[in-house]
Each structure stands twice: as C-alpha cells, then as structure tokens.
C-alpha cells in the first residue's frame, strides 16, 4: 500500500507545524504560569495531612467559583444559584454512590449531567428575563435546594447526612493528596479555558452581547445560545466540584448547600474581579481568610459557627463595593497598566484589502407595515436596494425611517408584508439569521463594545463567517480553528484598514472619538462580509473633512458591489453619495428617484422639502 507512507508524512508535517506553532505562541508569561502550577502541585509535601483536606476542599470550591465566573464574568448573568448547582452535584453523587451503589467514575459523570441538566432548564426558563429576575429566580432555586435537602431526610440522610462508601478508582483509594492533585488540575483547566475563551470565538460574542445586545445581534452574534451555553457550563462545573467535594469529605451534609454558599461564591467572583480568570480564586481566598479569622474569634467567644463569617463576608463585600466595586484584580490591573504601558502587538505591515461582495443580490421590501398600538409607523412600505448602489432614506423626524431600517434588519418584526434578499425570503427570520444571509445593520446611537479593543470589535463581526469557532475547537486550538482565526483576523484588519482604523487596533474602543466609534461600527459590520449594509445616520456629528471621507467610503463600498441603505438628514451628503432616494412621510413612501427627481416632486415639496432648497 503506497498510501500509508504518504499519510504518515502528512501526519508528521502536521505535527511539526503544530510544534512550531506552539513554540511560537509560547511566551514568558506561559512559562511563569506553568511554574506556578508545578509549585502548587508540590504543596502536599509541605503540609500535614489534616490541612490537606481543607486545602483540597478549597480547591474544589474555587473550581465552582471559576465556573460561576463563566456565567457572571463572560456572560454577565447575575447568578445566585451556584451553591444550588454545587449541592445538586454533591447529592447526585452521594445518592448514587451511597444508596445506588454506583461506582465512582460513572456517578461523577451522572452528577455532572444532572447539574448540567438543571443548568439548562434554569437557563432556558430565565433566559429571557432581565438581570433582576435572573438573580431572584436563582436565589429562590438556592432556597428550594436547601429546603428540599433539609426537610426530606429520606433523600438526604437527615441531620447526619449521607455517609459515603470508600472512594476507590481503578483499585486505588483516593487520598486527600490525590484529591488535591485532581482538583488543582481541573482548576487549572477551567482557568486556562477561561483565559483562552475570554478574548476569542465565543468569548468575544458573549462580551459583545454583555455590553450592547442590540449591536451584537445586528452583527449576527447568537447571543441567546452563547449565554445559555455559558450558564450550563457554569452549572456543570459546579456539579463536578460538588460531587468531588463529597468524595473528599466522605459525607454529604444537607445543610451545607444553599443560599449562604451561593452568596459566598457570588461574592468571591465580584471581590476578585468577574472578568478575570483568577478573580474568583483570589476572591475565594480572601473569604477563606475571613472565615479562618472568624472561626478563631468565634471559637474564643463561644459563638455558633458561621455567624461571624457571614458578617465579615458581608462587610468585606460592602467595603469593596463602597470603594467602587470593580474587584481586586481590576484594581491591580489598572495599576499595572499605569506602571507599564502595554506594548502594541506587531502585525503584518500590509493588511489585506476588502474583498468584493460575494454573490450580490437586491434587497426588496414589499408592503411592509408596522404598527405601535394605534400609531401606523410604517404603512405598506415599498423599497428596493440594488447591489452596487447607495439608497438614501430621508424624511422628516418621526416619518418611520429608523423603524424601516429596524424592520429590515429584523430587530423589529413586521406586522405585514415581505422582505427578501434576492430569492431568499427573510420575512420572519430573526436578526442573526438575516445577518448570516448578508443583511447587516448598525445602530443609530454609537454602540461599540467599549470593553473590547478596536480589533476585537471588528472580530465580533468577523465571527459571523467563522465555521470552527466553537468553545472546544477554540480551547484546543485545533489547526482548523487557528487557520479560521487567522482568516477572521485578516478580515477584521482589512475592514479596519478600509475605514482607516488599523493603526492602534489594540486600543480600547472606549478611547475612540465619537466619529471613530461610528467608523468602528461600520468596520465591524463590514467584517461580517455583508451583501447589504444598513446605516442609520452614520454622518451624525461628523466634521466637514470627516463627511468627505465617509462619502468616499460609501462610494467605494458601492463599487465593490455592496448595496447600502442609509438614513441621512444632511442633504448635501445625500447628494454626494446616493444613487436613489426614497422619501418617507408618516410611515408612507411618497417618492422614490434620484435626488433631483424627488426634489421636483410636488408631494415631497409640500411634505418636507418646501422649507429647504436643494
């Protein structure tokens, strides 16, 4: 067989390429963290056996806290249910092991699945709610888990709890040292995944959705799915941590999992800094410090356990909140930034140029109506945007221009009529799917993702065309994912270069001027490779020179085959860029044509232009 050596050769070259890639991306920081991890693994040698149980227990709690960081930090979901998921994992493990006689590994898997299932259900049930209601629902969930465990001794073993059988895996008994090593490895993996994902693939989409939901949806980010995924992952990690922690302590205590634990984990995440991988671990360490101090004082004064700890945790949280509430790591990070200026990453000198549109198609709206109560915002609107043309939508304030744009983008549903791109019927499709098919809108207000860098903003848009950007591929940095990521970065840089923002692409978007932010919105939209671009007053607040540049940009987009629908008040600007103009009044189209034709129209003159000469 002659194919075998060829396959081997391919594998070998792929492996060398991967090794080269790894060497190239390895940095001093990575070496530092690897050393820290190795040093932490050696801790059991220096500690007595009794302390080791505590330490392993801390590591499992830290794992749950980092899991909560996925929901709170990455997705911005205020979850007060992490203690409940931890308890659900713990009791799934305890019941299947102590009562069902299931071996350790399958029951661990079961515990994770049960916790993840509860996470999916909670995430689905609360996914449409605003933050306050998510907090309340997860809080109630924590109470329910506590009440169920404490009032049904038949399930939970009552006051003594469930005593676990000996923990054995593959004939080996799990010692506290083994638990510590397992816990630390899992914690390391969870931290690494957080760090890798926070600024790539799904993490970028989550950050975009956290800051500006509307803008993220407009760029085709599947915000709802990503949030559900982050919440489920967070619950599953808590379940795993809970299950392992009962194996460690050998007893499942029904009163240990509930609102108090949820609160402590929540505080740990905020105290340390929700958007930093290590934030939750640091926060939990501070709380553990409180709790040790509280235990010493409490024991000396003969207080019931836990009371002082709660009080100190509460005061600690209030102190941090009183100081501005950003958490410890963000403070440290801001200080570090002041001390040492961040270096710009070096990139290829000549960014790729924007590609011509792939498969241009006309956008057509037929008989589109939209009512808000008794107000007829759009009345049987007819509109067509040909590929390679700029179509301006003008009209007095309140004539329905922005509503028309939102209905076409899918941000608002139409009550009547149809919207199509070429032969593709878009009517009824949600916003991200329209973006996927090539109709991409920007917001009227400046809506950049302020926490992300300029490049990351554009990468959110470029993410729409990525096919290998799931959490697992992104985490394992598979060759496919890396190639995909490189292409996305090229697209993003090309879009930034097109609007003139490629210099300083590592700046935070919040540092840009208002006009630059509008350009960045356009760049993010262009990075999605749209066929039709919808712009709502892109020229608002621009200076004369900026207007000039913007007009050039739009004409250049037209020449690449893009259809552009633009709302604009500035008629001089409209005259410079628009091939066709549609005039709206009170939700109805009163004229379409070139600006000169429209200006000559009697209805337009009386409705709108009478006061302004063209």
């Amino acid at each position, binding site marked *: 067989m002659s194919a075998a050596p060829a396959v081997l050769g391919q594998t070998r070259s792929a492996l060398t390429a991967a090794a080269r890639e790894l060497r190239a991306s390895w940095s001093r920081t990575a070496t530092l963290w690897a050393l820290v991890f190795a040093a932490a693994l050696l801790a059991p040698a220096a500690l007595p056996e009794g302390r080791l149980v505590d330490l392993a227990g801390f590591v499992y709690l830290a794992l749950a806290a980092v899991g909560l960081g996925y929901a709170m930090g990455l997705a911005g979901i205020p979850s007060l249910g992490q203690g409940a998921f931890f308890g659900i994992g713990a009791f799934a493990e305890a019941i299947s092991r102590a009562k069902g006689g299931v071996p350790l590994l399958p029951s661990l898997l079961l515990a994770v699945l049960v916790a993840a299932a509860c996470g999916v259900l909670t995430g689905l*049930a609360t996914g449409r709610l605003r933050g306050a209601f998510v907090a309340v629902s997860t809080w109630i969930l924590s*109470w329910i888990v506590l009440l169920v465990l404490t009032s049904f001794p038949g399930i939970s073993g009552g006051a003594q709890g469930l005593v676990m059988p000996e923990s054995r895996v593959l004939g080996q008994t799990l010692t506290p040292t083994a638990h510590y090593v397992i816990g630390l490895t899992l914690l390391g993996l969870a931290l690494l995944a957080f760090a890798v994902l926070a600024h790539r693939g799904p993490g970028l989409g989550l950050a975009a959705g956290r800051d500006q939901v509307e803008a993220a949806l407009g760029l085709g980010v599947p915000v709802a799915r990503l949030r559900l995924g982050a919440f489920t992952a967070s619950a599953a990690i808590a379940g795993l941590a809970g299950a392992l922690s009962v194996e460690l302590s050998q007893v499942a205590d029904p009163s240990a999992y509930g609102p108090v634990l949820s609160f402590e984990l929540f505080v740990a995440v905020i105290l340390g800094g929700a958007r930093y991988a290590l934030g939750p671990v640091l926060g939990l360490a501070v709380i553990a410090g409180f709790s040790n101090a509280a235990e010493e004082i409490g024991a000396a004064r003969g207080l019931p356990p836990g009371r002082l700890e709660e009080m100190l945790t509460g005061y600690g*949280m209030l102190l941090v909140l009183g100081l501005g509430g950003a958490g410890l790591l963000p403070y440290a990070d801001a200080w570090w930034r002041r001390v040492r200026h961040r270096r710009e990453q070096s990139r290829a000198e000549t960014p790729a140029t924007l590609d011509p549109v792939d498969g241009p198609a006309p956008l057509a709206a037929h008989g589109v109506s939209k009512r808000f109560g008794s107000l007829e915002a759009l009345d049987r609107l007819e509109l067509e945007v040909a590929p390679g043309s700029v179509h301006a939508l003008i009209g007095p304030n309140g004539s329905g221009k922005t509503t028309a744009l939102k209905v076409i983008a899918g941000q608002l549903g139409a009550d009547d009529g149809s919207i199509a791109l070429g032969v593709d019927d878009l009517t009824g499709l949600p*916003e991200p799917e329209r973006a996927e098919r090539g109709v991409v809108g920007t917001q009227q207000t400046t809506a950049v993702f302020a926490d992300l860098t300029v490049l990351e903003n554009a990468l959110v848009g470029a993410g729409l065309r990525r096919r290998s950007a799931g959490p697992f591929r992104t985490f394992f940095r598979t060759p496919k994912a890396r190639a995909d990521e490189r292409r996305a970065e090229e697209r993003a840089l090309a879009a930034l270069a097109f609007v003139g923002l490629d210099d300083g692409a590592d700046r935070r978007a919040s540092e840009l001027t208002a006009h630059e932010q509008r350009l960045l919105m356009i760049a993010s939209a262009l990075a999605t490779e749209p066929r039709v671009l919808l712009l709502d007053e892109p020229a608002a607040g621009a200076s004369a020179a900026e207007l000039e540049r913007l007009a050039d940009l739009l004409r250049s987009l037209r020449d690449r085959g893009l259809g552009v629908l633009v709302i604009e008040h500035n008629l001089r600007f409209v005259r410079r860029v628009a091939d066709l103009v549609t005039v709206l009044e009170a939700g109805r189209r009163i004229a379409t044509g070139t600006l000169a034709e429209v200006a000559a129209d009697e209805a337009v003159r009386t409705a709108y232009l009478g006061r302004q000469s063209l």
Partner: protein
Amino acid sequence: MSLVVQVIVTGLAAGGVYGIFAVGYSLIYRLTGVVYFAFGDLVSFAVFATLLVAAGTAPVSQTSLPPGRFLLALLVGLLLCVGVGAATYILFIEPYLLRGSTLGWVAATLAIAFALHGMVGAVFTRPAYVFPDPLPFDELGRDGVVSVAGASIQVRSFFVIGFAALLAAAAAWTLERTRHGRALQAIASEPEGARFAGLPVERLVALTFGLVGGLAALAAVVAAPSAPFTVDTGALLGLKGLVAALIVRFGSPWAAFAAGLGVGLAEAAIDNLRIADLGLGPQYGEILPLAFALGLIAYRSLRSEPVPGRA
C-alpha cells in the same frame, strides 16, 4: 370545620405579614428596578435591636420589662430600621443603579443582608427569643386564646390581620393620595422626566427605602410576639414576601398584599389540611410556594415576547 377555621385565621395572620413585605418589595422594585434582598434581615435587625435596648441580650418574658423602657426600645428599633434602610440605599445601592450595574446592586443588597444577619447572630446566640407583646392580649379570652367554631385561636391573630391590612391601606393611600406618593409614581413611570421636572428623585427614593423599612419593622414587631423569634425568622419572612411580590409581578400595594395573604393561606393549608385523605405535611409548606413562584416566572418568561438577545 374547626381545623379549617384555624387554618384560615393562622394563614391570614402569617400572610398579612408576608403581604406587608410584598408591598415593600413591590414599591422598591417599581421605583428603582432593585430587588431589595436585605429586607428580611433588616427587619430581623430591627426586632433584635428592640430587644437589645429593652433588655440587653438576656432572655425576656412578657412581664419582666418596664413598659416605659419597652416603648423606648420599640421606637429605637423602628428608627434604626428607617435609618439603615435609607443609609444603605444612599451608600451602596444608588451608585450601582446609576451605573446600571445589576451585579453591583445584587451584591450590595445581599451583602447588607448577610452583614446584618451575621451581626445579629453574633450578638444573640440563643436558638430563639421571646418578643414581649406590646399590647395585653393575654388578658383577653383564656390566656389570649378564644374558641371560634370549635377552633382555638390566639386573639392577637385577628389583631395582626387587621393591623397588616391597615398598613397596606396606608401604603396604598400614601401612594395614591399624597404629594409624596404622586411624586413617587412619577418617578416610577418616568425617572428622567421626573428629574427634569425638578423632583428630588434621589432624596425621595432614599426616603422611600427608609419608610418601607419602617413599614416592615412595624409588621414584624406586631407579628413577632406570636411565636419565638430566631435570627433566621426575618430572612424567611422576607423570602415569602418576595415570593408573594413575584406572583403579582411587583404589582400595586393591594395586589401585593393579597398575594401575601394567599401565600400565607396556602402555607397553612399545605401544613395542616388533608384533602381526600391526602396530606402533604409541613415539609411542603415552605417549598411549594417557592417552587410555584419559580414555575410561574419560567412560564411567564417562556410565553413572553422574546427580548432581543435572550433565549
């Protein structure tokens, strides 16, 4: 029959207190969008501060207190509740509201709850405390108990129901009929407009946090003598009030109060009644209302129009 009467009266007495909490949660939520998680523990704090002023941390009995000192203690407890309610709003909640940080105010209200709970628990270490009755109900009936339709009922249960209804009416009246109330309604529906019209929005909201704290403290002080009060009682009362408020989606004072009564009745019925030989028993009395509220939230959420970006 006698059991049914007993269930109804005890249920309404407990529910009246939940109702007052629900009125407080609703008012605060409608004004600010904040769910005030510290509410229950704030009331615990008021009750135990009253005990502290009245008799230190020693246990007290109905007759051991001089009436003057007890009255002073009640007043101090009430004022503390008002003061702490308003102060925590200004110091910890408002800054995060202004920034639109949900994580921030959730953390703040919960931290206040646990700080208060831990503080009370560190000072009052017995399992439970008797709260003396400010009014001499034990002189009515047989040691404060009367027989109605064959059921033995504490006289003060009727007082609790009536007083709670009176407080709810006062809250509704304040909201509808007074200048302060109308200003609050303006703030709730249009905070920016209210600010523009020259209303001192921050001060009015802080005042409301204080008043709502005082309202709940009154309700708790009225209810506390009915049964031993523990460090956790306030948090549990608060939780049930929150459930009631959720059921009516933080609605008007009367709706919230009615929901509180409903939760109280349901709890008493689940605890005690056997229908067709099927009894659930006390272990379900607390869980089922919570589960019901959670299910209701999920149901409403799934039936609602999808908010952009939410599942």
